[in-house]
């Protein structure tokens, strides 16, 4: 039934303002083109402000960059498979590991987490969209613009080659004369805008747009963890912004910030980068912690053990994470007092993480486990992240870290926590939420192969790196020789080869995921509404959810509200018995739909504004007049945006009824 008021396609609509007010026509709102109102076709994606479409776009872009970053990794492993590798020369090798990390961190993991956050936060809290839908769209297009800028460098004189942490003065004009670092820095500033605006958007959404009755301690754990992540982004992004500005001022204008001869201290860059960089790694992993906190209870047929502990430990990780950054700098000459302080702080942060591991384990304990692919990935995270966490604890002991730092032991650690932690969690989310997003179930058979090949491949690749590191193989060395390889069980040659083979097994595993997606897209079978017998509100919708998410915004009385609508406690047996199916719950919800739902309308200003940043960035590298033209487009787009109402059709409606969508943005 049509309960959303929408103009017939193709007509211009002008908002009816209060009597006596002037009509706003396209020419008076500065736009040269009519406001887009298409609801199908490519325009409905390019100009969308719908959080679900944007979530899918974030996810698709992230998967693309996962493959790009993966290819970069395979090239690195090919180079290191044998002594005196000839696959990549030193210069290209430096570019490869820099871009591999940059792509994986900024263009894969963060956007993929954004994909889930964008898609599911509004659904999980019973909202119809985010607080600022156009800013949401703007964020996605900024990500694309930034990703393009960063990667253009491959074709325009070489990519950035200073490592993803880009230490200055090495990354300054003297030692990195090509434009690679400029593309990198400017591209990251642009993606940083996406992160910062997205953070503000999602925090306001979670604070302000929860369904009636949903107190903060009834909010699902994924939304909680994602919200902690947004706070981390809110406060960490400005710090790297400062670092990148200082670097660019040095490179472009000759400022002295990292010029040692003028008295500069190279540690300035390191501190600024890692003050951002450490919260960043929690930004990378917390969303996955949130995802498995949803998946584990569902497939254990038990509620999450210790919900308040899981929530508070997530917040604690976010908070304590600000106090440990210099553990990335133990060998940089900080001095014993600083080293000692940061060493102790780093040990402390293991505690809240341990709390989570305990809670997840106790969730599964005594549960009726169902080993779907999503569950396998979730359990995989609990194991493999723990391995990574343990090597992390060994780093926290500063004297021990002095041996480990800049070796493959560190590479092993962060790949276990990032791949075994962040990425396994993201895949768990894929398999869990795919039926809701796309209306079809990913194949469990292919999923099983995908999972096992990925996990085996991952362990074959990164497991040996613990040995390689402790045997002394340094990071960021483009080649190793027979002479340094050593003999016996711990020789470098054998384990490097194993790692390379492992990386291809891993690649095969990931390929199976792509194949699974492809095969699923082509099959006809649709997924049921609630295939997993899930617990939270996002499942109380159609497959996929309607544009306005909920016909009627539900009133929330419990944590795991959806579960409690399906099950009630049988007082005689003290077990939960089913009182309604998912279909019935949804039917009941739809019986009294809200009237007068106003969804925010599509707009082209977000993409115009975001893409104006591309000529600005290119202009700053090559030609200032181009940057000025970009700047003019930027100002034009900001002005046009500010004059555009968020809803294209008439905005004169009554207040006071339920079911308001987002109007701002």
């Amino acid at each position: 039934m049509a309960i959303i008021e929408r103009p017939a396609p193709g007509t211009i609509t002008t908002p009816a303002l209060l009597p006596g007010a002037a009509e706003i026509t396209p020419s008076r709102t500065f736009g040269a083109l009519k406001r887009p109102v298409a609801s199908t076709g490519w325009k409905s994606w390019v100009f969308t402000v719908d959080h679900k479409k944007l979530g899918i776009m974030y996810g698709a872009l992230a998967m693309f960059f996962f493959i790009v970053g993966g290819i970069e990794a395979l090239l690195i492993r090919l180079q290191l498979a044998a002594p005196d590798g000839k696959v990549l020369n030193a210069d290209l090798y430096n570019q490869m590991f820099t871009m591999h990390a940059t792509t994986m961190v900024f263009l894969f993991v963060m956007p993929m987490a954004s994909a889930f956050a964008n898609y599911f936060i509004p659904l999980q809290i019973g909202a119809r969209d985010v607080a600022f839908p156009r800013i949401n769209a703007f964020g996605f297009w900024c990500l694309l613009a930034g990703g393009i800028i960063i990667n253009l460098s491959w074709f325009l004189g070489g990519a950035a080659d200073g490592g993803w942490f880009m230490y200055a003065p090495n990354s300054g004009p003297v030692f990195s004369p090509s434009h690679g670092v400029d593309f990198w820095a400017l591209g990251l500033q642009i993606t940083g805008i996406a992160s910062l605006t997205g953070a503000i958007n999602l925090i306001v959404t979670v604070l302000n747009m929860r369904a009636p009755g949903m107190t903060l301690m009834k909010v699902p754990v994924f939304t909680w963890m994602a919200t902690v992540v947004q706070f981390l982004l809110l406060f960490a992004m400005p710090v790297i912004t400062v670092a990148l500005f200082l670097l660019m001022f040095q490179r472009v204008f000759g400022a002295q910030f990292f010029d040692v001869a003028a008295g500069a201290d190279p540690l300035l860059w390191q501190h600024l980068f890692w003050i951002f960089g450490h919260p960043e790694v929690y930004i990378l992993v917390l969303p996955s912690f949130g995802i498995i906190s949803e998946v584990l209870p569902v497939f254990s047929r038990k509620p999450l053990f210790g919900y308040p502990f899981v929530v508070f430990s997530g917040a604690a990780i976010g908070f304590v994470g600000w106090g440990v950054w210099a553990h990335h700098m133990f060998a940089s000459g900080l001095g014993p007092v600083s080293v000692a302080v940061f060493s102790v702080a780093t040990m402390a942060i293991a505690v809240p993480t341990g709390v989570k591991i305990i809670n997840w384990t106790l969730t599964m304990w005594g549960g009726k486990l169902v080993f779907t692919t999503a569950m396998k990935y979730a359990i995989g995270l609990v194991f493999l992240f723990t391995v990574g966490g343990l090597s992390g604890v060994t780093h926290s002991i500063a004297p021990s870290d002095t041996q480990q730092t800049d070796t493959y032991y560190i590479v092993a650690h962060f790949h276990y926590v990032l791949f075994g932690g962040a990425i396994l969690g993201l895949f768990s989310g894929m398999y869990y939420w795919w039926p809701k997003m796309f209306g079809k179930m990913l194949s469990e058979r292919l999923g099983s192969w995908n999972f096992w090949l990925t996990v085996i491949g991952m362990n074959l690749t990164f497991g040996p790196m613990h040995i390689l590191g402790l045997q002394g193989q340094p990071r960021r060395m483009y080649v190793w020789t027979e002479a340094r390889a050593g003999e016996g069980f711990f020789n470098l040659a054998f384990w490097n080869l194993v790692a390379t083979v492992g990386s291809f097994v891993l690649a095969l595993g990931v390929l199976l995921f792509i194949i699974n997606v492809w095969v699923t897209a082509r099959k006809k079978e649709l997924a049921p509404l609630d295939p997993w017998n899930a617990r939270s509100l996002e499942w109380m919708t159609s497959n996929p959810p309607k544009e306005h998410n909920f016909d009627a915004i539900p009133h929330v009385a419990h944590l795991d509200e959806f579960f409690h609508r399906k099950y009630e406690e049988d007082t005689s047996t003290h077990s939960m018995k089913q009182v309604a199916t998912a279909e019935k719950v949804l039917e009941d919800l739809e019986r009294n739909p809200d009237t007068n739902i106003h969804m925010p309308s599509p707009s082209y200003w977000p993409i115009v504004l975001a893409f104006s940043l591309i000529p600005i960035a290119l202009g700053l590298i090559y030609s200032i007049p181009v940057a000025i033209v970009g700047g003019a487009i930027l100002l034009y787009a900001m002005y046009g945006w500010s004059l555009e109402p968020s809803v294209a059709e008439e905005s004169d409606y009554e207040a006071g009824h339920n079911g308001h969508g987002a109007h701002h943005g």
Partner: protein
Amino acid sequence: MATDTHIHSESQTGDHAEHGMSTRGYVNIAIILALITALEVATYYVDFGPFFLPSLIIMMVAKFVIVVSYFMHLKFDNKIFSFLFYSGLVLAIGVYVAFLATFHFFIR
């Protein structure tokens, strides 16, 4: 939404819920700020001795808090705004003081 006009003295806490103090009240705050600024500038001309640094810091903080609390209305608004802003501020101070400390900035 009309606001009342009272005469405010600086000792009143001014508990106007919605849209703030009267013009007179704001002017009073501005005068206080100007006086503090004058005192700050005085440190350039007059030797404050050992009180130089502490008094400058205190005056800076005082002006900061006055503008935030009264001009930005934070004192009278919902606590959530204070939480959002002051967490950023406290985090910034904590992190950057620690940063400077590693450079032995506070050791003379």
